[in-house]
Structures are given as C-alpha cells and as structure tokens.
C-alpha cells in the first residue's frame, strides 16, 4: 500500500514509530498529484514549498523526541473558500482570482496548531453554489471513479482529492449538502457538523445561517480526528457555540445494539434511483443484523425543504456577495464610465451564471413587498422543518437515508437545468436548515460508482453519528475499495 492511500491514523502510527517521515508522506502525495492532476483537476492552487517546510518542522520535532498531534505531518487539502494567510483564496470565481487574504480562517489556525501540512486549495463551484463543481470559473473537477462523471459539489475538489489519493484529509463547506453530496459521489466520508460547532471565521460566506465547515476523510476514525482538530468555540464568530468539545475518537465504538434508527419515508420516495435505494436497504439490513432497531418514520415538511432553501440561501447570498464590487480587492472592470458602471460591469464580468442567478433570486425575495411572502414565509417553514426533526429525534438516535438520489451523473447532464441540479441536494438540505449534524459514508456501489449513506443526528451529537458510521465501516468493506486510476 502506498503512503498516499493510507489514512491519517495509520500514517500517524508510522510517523511516531519513525518508520516514515512527514517529508516522505508529503512527497508521496505530491507525486501522486503530479501524476493525476491533469486527469482530475482538483486543485486551484498548490502550496508545495510551504508544505515541505511544514513537513520538515514535524520531522524535526519527531527527531527531537517530542510528542506530535494526530494530524501532525498529515497532508490536508482545503476548499478554496476557506481563507489562508498569504495563499490566494479564489472561491473559484474570477472576481477573487487575485485575492490573497492577510489572515487565516480559524480552522486554518487550528490545523496549523496541529502541524498539519497544507497541500493546497481545492476546486469548487463558484462561491459554493452548485452540486457538480462544473460552476468553477477555472475548470471542472472529474470524478476519480469515472472521469466522465462529476464529483458532486460544491466541495468537489476536496472530495476528489481524497478518493484519488491526492490528499489524506481535506476540508469542505456544506451549505445545503456541499460536503455530503460530493462525499457520496466520490465514495469517501464527509461530515457536516452541527451549526456553530466549527467556527465560520474565514470561511467566505455563501449563506451565513446555513454554512458549516467540515472534513472529508477516507474512514470514520479520520473523521473523528479531524473533528477533534477543528471543533470548538471561537470568540471571532458570534454564532459559534459555547459548548464543550468531547474527544470524538471516544465514539469509535463497534456496537449499535439496542440503538434506534429512523428511516424517513420521504427520503426513500420515488425521486431516489432504485439501485441507490437498494444499496441503502441493504445497509439498513446490515444495521438490523448488528442489533440496531429500525423503524420507518415521517418528516412531513420534507417537500418544502428545497423551496425554503432556495429562498433563504440566495437571500443571504445576495447580501453576502454584495461586497465584491471592485472597489477594494479582486477583479475591477477596465475604464468604467462612473461608479455605478464600475459596480455593474465588475460584477457582470466577475460572477458566473449560477452566482448571478442566485443573487437575482435573493434580491427579489428580499425586496419590499415580497419579503413577507418569500423570506419571512421561508423562515416559518424552516421552523416547521426543525420541529419535524426534533420530533423524530425524540424517538431515534439517528435518521438514515441515501445521501443523494443518484450516483455520480455525467458532466454536462444537468448543468443547463438548474432545477434538476438543485434536486441532487434534496436529501441533504434539511440538516442545514435545522443546523443538525449529518454525515455521508460509503454504503455500496452501483456498478463502479459509489453510493453514499446519510446519517443525521441531534445537535452536537456528532459522537452518535461516528458510532453508527464506525460500526457500519467495521462490518463492511466499501471504504476499502479504490478507484482505478
């Protein structure tokens, strides 16, 4: 087995035993990246020099006999909407093509404190708007399982690098499923933590009340390790939660006997491809076999999640993206006639179609005379969706469903049909609206394409999700299958 194929906890063991150096690990991953990038197109920016320096520092520490953190020397890729000091952060948009933040996102500070090695910044849908990574202003990232297919989105780059061996762990952001959906389509583990569990400081905002940073990993144990590194209260983020952070690895328990799973029937309805449903049904059988109690349940307002999301997210986005006007940084149009012309042409040139579509939607939804009918109504429905979930969690430890209605679709297949594209996130949106934690893990295959299983949990009950996922993983081997590249 190659170093680039290993998990963080396996590599940590080798590092501590001095069987391998952090520099060797970084080299292995970069060599793999050199081989594959032309095929996969997952990185917007590579930070090789910095990475090698970081790896050397870890090796020096090990040589000096000092203890190292579980992520020390582990190569990590980061979605390009997470600010990295002195490293450009583009959000895959032309409007920020030259933006170099003078500050780190809080998660970057935390990764640096753990001495993780930053490999580079990964491709995404522009400003995290999309479900296929086809909306990047730069290039499309391809699915390592089949390069004619999409990676999902918007964190497609961060999912692809894990599947392809171009990184060991990565960070993405999830506003409506942007971690879980690409994790499912790329056959890796992806978690959206509870809203407020991870600081949003330095995450370029798409929809502030829904956005959350989370990890992509090869297995569940690595997911716990990443959560340990990035979770916690941050005084720089008012929406960050003042709750204690448990040791997430303590939930890596291979036992779900007597625990209760609810399967919302709305998530297994006709929109789900039959073969995906079959894979999820098999996973449910597995859990029953392992001693969990499974019941069908209902989330009556599920149908409203999509329209609610497509009011709230664009409304917040229309305001969050107003700052990209060419005045202070980023792209500015040439020779504008006056200030209004400068704003308009800068934004016309700088933003892609999907971003403009959502800005228009959001601007409309917030306009005088429409606010009550759209935005305010959406907030009310959001409450109903939360209440559905609260009721369900009074009864069940987790809710189980497919992560996506289908396996990875072909590039170009949905790009001209926004509604079709929006439907890829139908199973994931509710968790963002309710702020609850949810994860996706490999649960089967349709042909050679991975199927993702979604587990949703109570607020701040990431531990329970890890426990279910770990048990499933220990008793199956979907996560061990590698794409042929």
């Amino acid at each position, binding site marked *: 087995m190659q170093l680039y194929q290993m998990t963080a906890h396996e590599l940590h063991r080798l590092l501590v035993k001095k069987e391998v150096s952090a520099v060797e690990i970084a080299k292995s991953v970069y060599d793999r990246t050199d081989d594959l990038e032309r095929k996969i197109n997952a990185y917007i920016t590579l930070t090789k020099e910095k990475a090698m320096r970081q790896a050397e520092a870890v090796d020096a520490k090990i040589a000096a006999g000092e203890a190292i953190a579980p992520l020390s020397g582990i190569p990590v890729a980061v979605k390009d909407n997470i600010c990295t000091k002195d490293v450009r952060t583009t959000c895959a948009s032309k409007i920020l093509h030259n933006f170099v933040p003078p500050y780190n996102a809080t998660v970057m500070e935390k990764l640096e404190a753990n001495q993780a090695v930053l490999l580079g910044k990964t491709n995404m849908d522009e400003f995290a708007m999309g479900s296929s990574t086809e909306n990047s202003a730069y290039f499309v990232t391809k699915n390592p399982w089949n390069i004619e297919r999409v990676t999902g989105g918007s964190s497609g780059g961060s999912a692809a690098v894990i599947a392809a061996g171009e990184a060991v762990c990565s960070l993405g952001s999830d506003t409506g499923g942007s971690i879980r959906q690409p994790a499912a389509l790329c056959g890796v583990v992806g978690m959206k933590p509870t809203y407020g569990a991870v600081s949003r400081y330095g995450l370029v905002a798409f929809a502030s009340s829904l956005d959350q940073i989370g990890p992509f990993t090869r297995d569940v144990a690595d997911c716990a390790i990443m959560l340990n590194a990035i979770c916690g209260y941050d005084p720089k983020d008012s*929406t960050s939660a003042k709750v204690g952070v448990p040791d997430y690895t303590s939930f890596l328990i291979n036992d779900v006997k007597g625990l209760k799973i609810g399967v919302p029937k709305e998530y297994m309805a006709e929109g789900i491809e039959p073969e995906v449903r079959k894979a999820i049904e098999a996973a449910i059988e597995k859990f029953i076999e392992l001693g969990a109690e499974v019941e069908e349940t209902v989330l009556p307002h599920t149908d409203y999640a999509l329209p609610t999301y497509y009011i709230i997210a664009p409304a917040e986005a229309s305001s969050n993206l107003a700052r990209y006007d060419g005045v202070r940084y980023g792209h500015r149009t040439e020779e504008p006639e006056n200030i209004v012309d400068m704003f308009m042409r800068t934004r016309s040139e700088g933003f892609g179609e999907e971003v403009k579509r959502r800005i228009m939607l959001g601007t409309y939804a917030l306009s005088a005379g429409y606010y009550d009918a759209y935005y305010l109504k959406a907030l009310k429905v959001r409450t109903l969706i939360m209440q559905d979930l609260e009721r369900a969690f009074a009864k069940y430890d987790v809710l189980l469903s497919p992560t996506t209605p289908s396996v990875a679709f072909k590039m170009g297949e949905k790009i001209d049909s926004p509604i079709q594209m929006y439907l890829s996130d139908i199973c994931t949106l509710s968790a963002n609206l309710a702020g609850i934690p949810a994860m996706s893990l490999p649960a089967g295959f349709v042909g050679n394409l991975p199927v993702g299983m979604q587990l949703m949990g109570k607020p701040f009950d990431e531990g329970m999700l890890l426990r279910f996922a770990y048990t499933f993983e220990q008793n199956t081997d979907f996560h061990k299958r590698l794409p042929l590249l």
Partner: protein
Amino acid sequence: MTRYEAVIGIEIHVELKTNTKIFCHSTTEFGGDPNTHVCPVCLGLPGVLPVLNKQVVEYAIKAGLALNCEIAEYSKFDRKNYYYPDLPKNYQISQYDLPICKNGYLEVETGQGKKRIGITRIHMEEDAGKLVHQGTITTSPYSLVDYNRTGVPLIEIVSEPDMRSAEEARAYAEKLRSVIQYAGVSDCRMEEGSLRCDVNVSVHPVGTGEFGTRTEIKNMNSFRSIQKAAEYEIERQIEVLENGGRIIQETRTWDENKGITVSMRTKEEAQDYRYFPDPDLVPLVIEREWVEAVRNSLPEMPEQRVARYIESGLSEYEANVLTASKEVSDYFDQCLKTYNNPKMVSNWIMGDLSRLLNSVNMEICDCRVKPAQLADMLKMIDSGTISGKIAKTVFEEMFNTGKDPETVVKEKGLVQISDESAIAAVVDEIIAANPKSVEDFRNGKDKAIGFLVGQIMKATKGKANPQLVNKLLKDKLS
C-alpha cells in the same frame, strides 16, 4: 390667507465614545492617516465576521434610560443593503424592527413653557467610511476612500413628529445633545461629525387633522442650521401650497451659504434597503439586571443638577443657564470643589467668562483658565488681596495667557493696598485737593463721597482696598 401649522420630527445620529469599533477591535480615535484605523473585520474582507462590542450596547441602554425609553428585552441586528464605495460590505449593520430602545421622551423649554417631545426609538448601527474627491464629486477624475470611520458605533435617535416650530426643533436638538453628554455616552462634537441631524418637515392648514407630505433635510451639523433650514423649509412648503402646488416626498440638503434647501432625490428614486436579520450576529437578549445596573450607573442628569443648584441658592434662571451645557456645569462644579460660593462662581461664569468666550468664539472646554484657577482668584478677592474691580483685569489676563492669578497679580503689581497709613495719606491728599466736594458732602450731598472715592481709587490705580477707603474717608470727614 390660510394659517399653517408645521410638523417637525428629527433623527439624530450620535457617535458613541467607545475605544473600539462596534464589531471589531480597531480604534475609534478621530483622525489618523487614511485607512490606518482598520482591520479585516471593519473592512468587510471575505470570510471575516462581526462580533458585537458590549460597551456599545451598554451605552445605547444608558442613552435610552437618560431619554426615558423602554429597553427591549429582545433585540437584533439587521442588514440594510445598498451600494456605495464607502460601505465596505455594501450593507450596513443596523437595527430595523426590533431596536434596543423605544417609547421615550424629552422635556424641552419652549416659548409656551415645558413641552414633552416623544422619542420613537433608538437603534444601534455602524458608521460608513468617507470619500475624498479631488475637487468636486462631479468633476473629480478619481475618488479615494478612507475607511477609518467604518464601524464606528452610532445610535440613531428618532423623535416623534411632536415639534411645531423651527425654534422647538432647535431646542429639542440642543437639549438632546446636553442629555447625551450628561449620560456620558458621547462627546457630541458636531464639528467632528459625532452628532448629525436629519430634520423631517411638513405643513398643513391649521384646523385640519391630517399631516401634510413631509420632506427630509439631511445631515445638518449645527443647531443654527437646524433652525434656519426648518424655517426655510416651512416657508417654502407654505409658498408651494399657497400657489396651488403639491409637496413631493423627497430628501433635501441644506445649503448653508445660500440659506436654502435643495432637492437631493425624490421618493421615486428611493432605495429599497432589503432589510433582513443579520445571520452573522445572534439575537440580543438583554438581562433586566444589566439594565438596572446601567440605570444605577447613570450620572446626575440636568434636571437633578438644576434642583441641586437651586437648593444651593441660585435662581432658577441661573441654574438653567449653567446646566444647559454639561461642560459649563462641570466647570461650575469643579470651581465649587475649592471655592464653595455658588453665587459668586455663577456670577463669574455667566458674566466675565462667558463674555470673554463669546468674544473669541470659544467653547468652555478649550478655555485656558482652569476651574481651580478661577477659584483661586475668587479666594484672592475674599482675602482682600485684590479688589473685585481689579479681579476683572486679572481674569482677562488669565484668560488670554492661562497664567495663575497669583502670577498675574505679581507681574502686574496689582496687589490691593490694605495698609491703613498708606491709604490715609492718599485720602488726605484727595481731601485737600477737592474742597468743593468735601463741602458738598458736609452739606448733606451723599453723592459727593462717591466722587472722592473714585479719585482715591484713581490715584492708587484701583489698588486701594475699597472698604478701607470708605472707612477712612468717612472717619476724616465726620
């Protein structure tokens, strides 16, 4: 001709005197090189988040309590969306439907006595930056932006449309400034823009219940312009109506030089701000204990000072004049600390000091004579070192130079002559030189003694102790 009644409401922006900005740690210090008092948060760079400054909330509560407002238990911040280069995020964080304070009032002295002006609401918000044009805004080849002010905390105080004349509008603004200063939450320096007024004016024929269409005059920064602009606008609107015209709802600016208001934009072009709750800031739940603690920390307000001054023997008039400005009142109180004679101090502040300040158009806070120095000079009068008359000269010199009274008296040789024999010699001289007056006095003309005293004072360059002069003169003439 129809008689008209004016209706005026005022919105006042007040800058709070916190050390740091409303949502970050950048300094709020006035001035500084452009864009030196900024950080990623107040510049609204991608990814950064606002964190509310607790001191801002405390000051807003304090202002609300000073203006007799209800303090909300639940409040929140909203985004007000509009494009302008001095607004880094292209939205301003403000409060829309749930402001921190509401339903207050302010009592104002008017021609018809005390009047209560309602305060609709007070909300918190961040200030924007400022544009610097080369030449004028229309001809400048480029414009520069200074974001130093961006994120400076403001409260906006919105009155009810309770004022009926330009004088009342001015009185309200002046009183409000004084109360805010007393509360200690702002310096209210109008020249630095820390207090800015927008005035809403409408007129309607007396007797009709309904208010007329209003116009808003933006950004006035002196009490005089508030009054002048309101006067102008009332007359302008009456004239339009008298000529059969119609008032259009619009925003106008006050042209100080021409003394007129000018249309800025009409309602048709009015902005749709698309307010919505700011998802980056959590709602504000304000504990009652905190409000009570703030209430207990409120300093003495003008009404309380007026009562205290009257108690100490001043007239109501004097008490009101002294308390109209917090700085004057503070100056007065400082003097009393070392020279506890309210009447005397009051006379000097309202007399010589304000006369001299007015003559050079100076505020009391910039005055070179410190309260302790005035007190020292008053003590020198009491001890007989200088006469009340000489004190006027001494004070003027102190005012011009900032020197201590002792220094001035020494340098100018103004020490009062209280030596009986020295004065007696002069008295003898004057009696000898003015036999006519002496005779007049002896014939019962009491006035004549005044002339003699004057002559003695003249001969001693005013330095003779007047009591002693009187005593000696009467002794010698009887």
